[in-house]
């Protein structure tokens, strides 16, 4: 098996370059947060304040709020005046399922507005839904918080259609419409050259087949093509959708560790279910090395079985989240310097970084797919070359 092309390819060189580049920028960002500004809920809504308030702008909380999941698509406005797309909240508590729309919270995410449903009282505290305390604390929050702002309220199982879940379903529907459409145009123009959108997609499909699947999986590539194609287009589309700053984009889906966890678990399952005896032998009883070495290598190799998908999970999450943080941090410069004149600089940088993020969005989808193919290839190959 030849891996060298992965490291030699120009794309990876670029991504290495970009990774270094991004690391450089994120260092700058981490230098900015004000250490004296606690991540308190009060500071949170000051983004659009007209400067009448003298509070410090909390860049960390602002950014984390924006890349986190939420129960609703915020469009514009602040506080009670904000306009948002309301999404269903689905909670599983001891006495059954509770559902209501997120608009019931009246855009409150500070635990101040209690929603009563099915004899239970809920509050939205930092986009997590807790069972409300009976009485509010000194900040008017129906929460019982300890000294570290840790909530001790009961956290029901939350199956809500959050912003990320909405984006997930939305992207799935778009992908289905697009690719079933493409499949239909194949059926319509049977045996002819591709046309229109089909000709845009076909090179990508061929790229995945010829440059990812076949070099890594060999003759058995066909069975894994649906997964590789789906995972590639799903990640790519969501990476780009995440770059769109307004509804229906804007959710940081591929930069959410829960989603990358699911994807890497699927890769992990495919790899290990399809793995042949040869692969397991290489893990537990490495051929060609002395017995003490075999015993020494077995736990390391076994660890590798798990670290590979974990690396996959972290890589996608970190890259996409880093991009979002970077864009937001550059925009926050305007508020940090409290000057409108810094805006052009911010915008130029944001546009530049967004361009790079478009590239990173593709590269990360590509890397996830390549590594998936590689791991599966390692597990299913018949004759190892070590």
């Amino acid at each position, binding site marked *: 098996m030849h891996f060298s092309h992965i490291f030699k390819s120009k794309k990876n060189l670029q991504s290495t370059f970009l990774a270094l580049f991004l690391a450089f920028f994120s260092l700058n960002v981490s230098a900015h947060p004000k250490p004296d500004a606690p991540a308190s809920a009060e500071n949170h809504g000051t983004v659009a304040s007209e400067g009448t308030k003298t509070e410090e702008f909390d860049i960390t909380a602002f950014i984390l709020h924006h890349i986190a999941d939420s129960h609703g698509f915020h469009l514009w406005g602040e506080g009670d005046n904000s306009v948002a797309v309301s999404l269903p909240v689905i909670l599983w508590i001891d006495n059954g399922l509770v559902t209501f729309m997120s608009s019931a919270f009246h855009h409150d995410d500070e635990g101040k507005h209690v929603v009563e449903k099915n004899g239970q009282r809920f509050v939205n505290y930092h986009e997590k839904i807790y069972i409300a305390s009976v009485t509010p604390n000194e900040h008017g929050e129906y929460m019982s918080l300890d000294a570290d702002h840790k909530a001790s309220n009961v956290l029901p199982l939350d*199956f809500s259609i959050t912003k990320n879940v909405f984006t997930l379903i939305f992207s799935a529907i778009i992908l289905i419409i697009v690719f079933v459409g493409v499949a239909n145009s194949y059926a319509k123009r049977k045996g002819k050259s591709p046309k229109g959108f089909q000709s845009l997609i076909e090179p990508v499909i061929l790229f995945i087949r010829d440059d990812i699947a076949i070099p890594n999986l060999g003759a058995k590539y066909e069975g894994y093509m649906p997964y590789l194609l789906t995972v590639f287009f799903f990640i790519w589309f969501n990476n780009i959708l995440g770059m769109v700053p307004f509804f229906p984009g804007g959710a940081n889906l591929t930069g959410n560790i829960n989603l990358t966890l699911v994807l890497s678990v699927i890769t992990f399952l495919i790899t290990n279910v399809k793995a042949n005896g040869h692969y397991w032998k290489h893990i537990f009883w490495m051929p060609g090395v002395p017995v003490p070495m075999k015993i020494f290598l077995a736990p390391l190799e076994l660890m590798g079985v798990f670290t590979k998908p974990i690396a996959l999970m972290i890589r996608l999450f970190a890259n996409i989240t880093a991009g979002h943080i970077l864009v937001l941090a550059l925009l926050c410069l305007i508020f940090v310097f409290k000057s409108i004149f810094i805006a052009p600089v911010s915008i130029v940088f944001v546009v530049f970084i967004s361009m790079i993020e478009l590239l990173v969005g593709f590269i990360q989808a590509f890397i996830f797919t390549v590594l998936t193919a590689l791991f599966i290839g390692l597990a299913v190959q018949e004759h190892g070359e070590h």
Partner: protein
Amino acid sequence: MDLFSPSIGLIVWSTIVFLTLLFILAKFAWKPVMAAIKEREQFIDDALNKAELATQEMARLTAQNEDLMKQARAERDEILKEAKMLKDNIVNEAKTQAQTEGTKLIEKARIEIENQKKAALAELKGQVSSLSLEIAERVLRSQLDDKAKQQDLVASLLKDVELN
């Protein structure tokens, strides 16, 4: 940190949605698309192979034609050569035949001439003998007067005749 907080809802939803997406796309998109691409590539390969075969066939046919032409030319040359030989033979034969015929005719003519000559000679001999007899008669008649003279004359006449 908030970034790493697990969310069971998102995990469950993304598992369901992703697997559904995978299933639907695999069944309704990737399967027909991959099949169509493969079929088309097969078709292109076949077409190229066929073109290759056709070129080879063409070359073969050209070579065959060339061969046929060469063969035909050789055959034509052969035929021409044969014809020429035949003509020469015929001419030669005719010549020899004519020659033999001519010699035969000449021979015949010669024999005829000989015969004629012989006949003429015989006739001449006869005439000469009758003439001699006549002469002898006349001489005898004239010489009978002189006996001795008669005898001499006869003897000399006979001598002359025999010489002839």
